[in-house]
């Protein structure tokens, strides 16, 4: 039996597949979430991407699996949302310490600030938003983000900066 088309080091092995899932599923989920928001069910998109990987496992080597997963997840959602604004949820309670809770004016200001922040985030292009949040929230290195988005590290750095600057201008009402 010839197996010319099958790549030797492929992802069909169950343990390899499970390992890939362990390594990339969370990042994939976060990426999809920051890019498209919760409405398009990032968890499902993760599963769809991994199913695609499984179906094509013979032709995908382990080192290509990551980029395959991200492009599948990216493409699977592209058609659905073209011009839709992505509004990300935020949780205020992370900030609360006892003093803040007792100060209603502070709470009020904080609420207003976060609402402006949310709106400003939704006005960012998805590339900027993803780069900014993956870096500042998930702590991803420029290099990793560059891989995920398929752009250079310089471009990642630039996006993070412009995202921050744009957020500041909008939040501060400049």
């Amino acid at each position, binding site marked *: 039996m010839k197996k010319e088309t099958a790549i030797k080091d492929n992802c069909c092995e169950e343990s390899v597949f499970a390992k890939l899932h362990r390594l990339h599923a969370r990042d994939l989920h*976060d990426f999809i*979430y920051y890019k498209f928001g919760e409405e398009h069910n*990032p968890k499902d998109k993760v599963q769809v991407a991994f199913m695609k990987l499984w179906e094509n496992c013979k032709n995908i080597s382990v080192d290509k699996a990551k980029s395959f997963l991200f492009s599948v997840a990216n493409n699977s959602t592209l058609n659905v949302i073209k011009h839709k604004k992505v509004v990300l949820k*935020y949780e*205020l309670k992370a900030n609360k310490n006892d003093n803040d809770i007792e100060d209603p004016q502070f709470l009020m200001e904080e609420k207003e*600030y976060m609402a402006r922040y949310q709106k400003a985030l939704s006005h960012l292009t998805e590339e900027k938003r993803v780069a900014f949040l993956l870096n500042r*929230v998930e702590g991803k290195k420029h290099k990793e983000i560059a891989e995920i988005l398929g752009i250079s590290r310089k471009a990642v750095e630039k996006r993070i*900066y412009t995202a*921050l600057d744009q957020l500041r201008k909008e939040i501060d009402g400049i």
Partner: protein
Amino acid sequence: MIMKEELVKKWLNNELTAEEMESFKKTNEYHSYAKILERAKYFKAPEFDEKSSLEGLNFAIKSRKKASKNTIYQLIGAISAVLIIGFFVYKYVFVSASVNQFNTGIAKTEQIELPDYSEVSLNANSSLSFKAQQWDDERLLSLNGEALFEVEKGNKFKVSTDYGTVEVLGTVFNVKSRDYIFEVQCFEGSVKVDINKDQYILKQNDKLVFYNDQVSLLQNNTSIPDWKNNISIIKSQNLGNVLDEFKNYYDVKFDISQIDTNQIYTGSFSHQNLEIALNSITLPLGLSYKIDGETVFLSNK
């Protein structure tokens, strides 16, 4: 402006020198930037459960595998489905054409409906069999143990036991056929009992007891056998027989090396609580018991 961009990028990368940091902190924008970065974490993506995601995937892959087998497999599946169904149909027909057998374990009872809708309640540690195929010609059952019969009207209904046969036309009666005793109790209609070449006709409330090779006829006004009330009522039996009866309802062994099993017991015991049942037997006889695992040691007080 270019200056500022480079400064902020360096700051983002933690590459500012102490001096640069000092001057950057004095700019108007610094606090805005810092607050934005600090608040960014509130937008963190929801928790992702890696494990359950993988489990979901494995499940999806497995069901996909099953679904995506080609048509040959589907054909094989269809054929085997037909074979399996055929097997069960055959088995059902075959079994009903041969002997239907029911067995109950210790402390278990079973309700059985016969082909003519007559009903049998099979008591614990008993077996009952009949041939469904020939049921229309002859209503014949064989019983080992104890059962209550509620017989629909029709032709002769026979219960065959090691002691003899019990024959009726339509009635309610209880047959007890244990190693140590044979009893027939009639609750409705009439029953004919064939035992030791003698025939006895039992009417309502009549009870026949065959014990120690002797037949005695008694009157009993209960409308239901004792075992249906989860109790055994015993009249003047030797202790050995009582313990045999006891073992139909409790999965225990008796150590009787220290007692006389020929002493006579009259009384009753429950089928639902081992200790209460043991007390019911041992207290009147002045015995005491000790439970060790599945063995009950009996001794004189």
